[in-house]
């Protein structure tokens, strides 16, 4: 879909209006699965500026327009209440609140820029859990010509890469017996398997984390069963996948060391590494320099919805948004409002460039 638009399809959004949207969205709790109220506020913003908008079957806010670029970020946040307030820190106004950085700041900045420039926008749900919004979007929509995914990269950062993600659940059962017996039980089998997996992916200290497979157990439960006849263990694990590998090879390596028990794997998310030489990356560098800042190119050790977009859509993309990602999910999550304003200006300049209009 590539909708041709004219200047009449754009609308003015003042920095005050953009900040008001940001504060409203941060003030509305929107943990994954409970995004409806925030989605309504976001949809109202587009409606108020005469933009076509609807909330789709999974709860995404869809505002299609010129597909020269799709601006998209996530509506949901991780749980956690942080009292919403604006404080002055080192002479700057700073907004405190859950989601201010991850990723309501990028979301509101993109909404303002999309209305100002007349490009397509989607606010997706469920990014912090199973990415159900992004998964639905790639099945329900044709590829745009370019994508900006919204996550905190900082005003000057352009994120080009993310590692992939593989999650699984290990389950083992052994017969119960006296603990003085030498035979390993299910808990020991789980521990031994995981130790061999960690050893298999161990690398030298100088290897950048982005290029490593990193391993993390995230939940473990074990002990004698209720009927007393067996010992059971369940362990949830996560592995991050560098662009040099695919999920299948990582899975094979992990399973090669499996002597007892079974592992059920979730659908993997592939890694992504975009070129800095695309038109969208160029447009960001120019826009950031126009704000008298030095652009930075980033590759992140985590995973985002951009991984899914890159797997489904054959178009150039980057991730961008205001905020310090060290504050992702943190109890002191907060966003500089001047950084928010500058990110809106940068996104507007990028979208204008990609629409083929004057920079």
């Amino acid at each position, binding site marked *: 879909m590539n909708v041709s638009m004219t200047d009449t399809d754009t609308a003015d959004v003042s920095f005050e209006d953009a900040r008001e949207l940001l504060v409203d969205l941060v003030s509305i709790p929107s943990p994954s699965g409970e995004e409806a109220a925030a989605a309504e506020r976001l949809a109202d913003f587009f409606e108020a500026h005469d933009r076509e908008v609807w909330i789709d079957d999974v709860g995404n806010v869809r505002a299609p327009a010129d597909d020269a670029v799709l601006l998209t970020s996530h509506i949901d946040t991780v749980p956690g209440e942080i009292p919403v307030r604006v404080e002055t820190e080192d002479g700057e106004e700073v907004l405190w609140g859950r989601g201010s950085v*991850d*990723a309501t700041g990028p979301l509101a900045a993109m909404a303002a820029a999309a209305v100002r420039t007349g490009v397509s926008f989607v606010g997706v749900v469920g990014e912090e859990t199973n990415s159900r919004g992004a998964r639905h979007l790639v099945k329900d929509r044709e590829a745009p010509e370019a994508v900006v995914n919204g*996550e*905190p*990269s900082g005003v000057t*950062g352009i*994120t*080009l*890469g*993310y590692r992939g993600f593989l999650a699984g659940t290990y389950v083992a059962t052994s017969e119960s017996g006296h603990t003085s017996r030498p035979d390993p039980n299910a808990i020991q089998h789980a521990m031994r398997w995981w130790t061999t997996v960690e050893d298999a992916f161990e690398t030298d200290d100088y290897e*950048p*984390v*982005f290029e490593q497979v990193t391993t993390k157990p995230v939940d473990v439960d074990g002990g004698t069963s209720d009927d007393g006849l067996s010992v059971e263990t369940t362990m949830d694990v996560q592995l991050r996948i560098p662009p040099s590998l695919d999920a299948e090879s990582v899975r094979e390596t992990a399973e090669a060391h499996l002597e007892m028990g079974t592992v059920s794997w979730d659908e993997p998310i592939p890694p992504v590494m975009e070129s*800095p*030489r695309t038109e969208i990356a*160029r*447009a960001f*560098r*120019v826009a950031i*320099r126009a704000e008298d800042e*030095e*652009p*930075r*190119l*980033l*590759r*992140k*050790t*985590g*995973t*985002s919805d951009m991984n899914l977009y890159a797997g489904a859509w054959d178009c150039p993309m980057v991730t961008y948004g205001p905020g310090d*990602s*060290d504050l*992702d999910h943190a109890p002191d999550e907060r966003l500089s409002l001047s950084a928010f304003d500058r990110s809106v200006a940068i996104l507007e300049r990028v979208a204008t460039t990609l629409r083929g209009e004057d920079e």
Partner: protein
Amino acid sequence: MTECVECGADVTLHDDLEVGEIVDCTTCGAELEVVDTEPPVLERAPELEEDWGE
């Protein structure tokens, strides 16, 4: 034609050069970013940094 900011060698530039474009120095291999076109000005292109999280 302009000079590589890393090694000083001549860098040949094409006619429809754009600001923000990345070009290569064929002598030292440096990646250079065009920060102006009238006249052409090159800077070392930003290097890829590693960051945590999303």
